[in-house]
């Protein structure tokens, strides 16, 4: 009994320390990004709005006709979630490389550096929700229970992001070319997540191809829950869940296996 208590106390202590480190790292990132910006955090809020307006302007004539008048919200749902995914995973690319000194000199859990980047992206995501809430209010959408399902949707996406982030950080430490490949990859995700078009305009065969894309699925779930008040079918949940668990296990085991080697080489 005492042993178990001891162990729990240790865990709590470790978690407390980790949170402290994460907070320090976030503060540093924040300083780097915003110290010189007089508008500070306001940017995080304005950015998604600008993106939305631009995309609505450019694509409304091409694709906006059959989206029941909610084209801006349709786009915003997509870009907000895509933004979370791409910024989070892209920042993980140099999570290890940038924290070289920390890695060598300290003994804290190495996956913290990844967690910190994801947390930073999540924080920006929360900011962008301000605009989202504003748009939802503008369209007078009726609140419903289905909105709550967005929560597990985002959680699954983030679990997947952690896995991918770990993978990318490890690969980038020895093979820097990965950043170019990943840029191409995110571009592919950008265009194939149906951010600014409806997939109904495509042939049924291609439509099923979209189900391979986890980001598209996360967006689709959010759209159904918020905009249509519909419960997304289990197929979507299963695919997203499999991606989350799969990426997380692969990423974590790969990370564990390689991290000591990489730190030693630095």
């Amino acid at each position, binding site marked *: 009994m005492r042993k178990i208590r001891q162990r729990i106390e240790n865990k709590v202590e470790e978690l407390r320390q980790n949170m402290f480190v994460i907070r320090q790292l976030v503060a540093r990132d924040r300083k780097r990004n915003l110290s010189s*910006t007089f508008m500070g955090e306001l*940017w995080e809020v304005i950015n998604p709005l600008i993106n939305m307006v631009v995309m609505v*302007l*450019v694509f409304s*004539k*091409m694709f906006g006709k059959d989206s029941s008048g909610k084209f801006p919200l349709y786009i915003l749902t997509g870009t907000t979630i895509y933004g979370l995914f791409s910024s989070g995973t892209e920042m993980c690319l140099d999570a290890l490389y940038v924290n070289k000194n920390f890695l060598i000199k300290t003994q804290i859990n190495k996956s913290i550096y990844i967690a910190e980047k994801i947390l930073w992206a999540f924080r920006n995501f929360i900011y962008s929700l301000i605009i989202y809430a504003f748009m939802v209010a503008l369209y007078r959408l009726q609140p419903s229970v289905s909105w709550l399902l967005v929560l597990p949707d985002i959680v699954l996406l983030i679990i997947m992001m952690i896995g991918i982030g770990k993978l990318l950080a490890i690969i980038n430490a020895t093979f*820097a*070319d990965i950043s170019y490949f990943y*840029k191409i990859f995110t571009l592919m995700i950008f*265009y194939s997540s149906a951010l600014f078009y409806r997939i109904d305009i495509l042939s049924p065969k291609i439509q099923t191809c979209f189900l391979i894309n986890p980001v598209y699925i996360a967006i689709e779930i959010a759209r159904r829950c918020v905009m249509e008040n519909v419960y997304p079918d289990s197929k979507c949940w299963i695919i997203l869940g499999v991606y989350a668990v799969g990426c997380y296990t692969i990423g974590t085991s790969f990370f564990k296996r390689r991290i000591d080697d990489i730190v030693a080489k630095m």
Partner: protein
Amino acid sequence: MSTKMSIRQYCFVLWELTKRELKRKYARSFLGILWSCVYPLMRMALVVVLFSTIFNKGIDKYPAYYFVGFLMFEFFATATQTSLTTLKDNRNLLVKSKLPRELFVLSRVLTAFVNFLLGCIPFAAVLAWYRARVTVYYCMIPVVLILLLVFTTGVSYIVSIWYVFRRDARNIYTNFLFILRFFVAMFYAVEWVSDGVQWVIKHNPVYAYIYVMRQCVIYGQQPGSMYLYQIVVWAVVLLVVGILTFKKYENEVVERL
């Protein structure tokens, strides 16, 4: 300028600075500078495959159409964005040496230009694959390129000074470039967007350069005279304004860095 440099010395320093930038950019990767060729090609292949499925209306010679837009816009964006921070990045060298200060801006522009030229190699392959006819309009290519270079240099001068005085310039400019990217008709045809947006695109200097280049190289047609007029005026105006701004504030920069 207190120290007089001969043109040869000037070019030598410029090239050394540029080489340093290029080396730094690709320092950790295996393919190194080859990425300048490979990356645009990969990107084009991806966009062409995706868009031939998403857009059902086609554009004639779409791969080449996209390639020109991408390369030219990317040159403009990279050159100006890296120039923005160049004075701060090279602070030590700037304070301690008597090098003419505009060299730091020019070296960033030149770096982006070298990248651009390397990206043109796979583009030439795409053109050859289409068996694009070599027309008299090919003589226009160097003219357009030089004008684009002049225009970009002018903008780079201005933004490099701007960043010294206003540190949020970087954020603002990054956002501006993001917006601009959608208004140069890179991956769609101008006719597909609404009239208001069309007007904006047609008065966008970067689009004018891209349009003239597309007409000359891909379609072998005479570009509209409005655009020809535009690309000359924009280049001259921006260069003059750029140099004047730079000269005016150049000395204040050192105190502010």
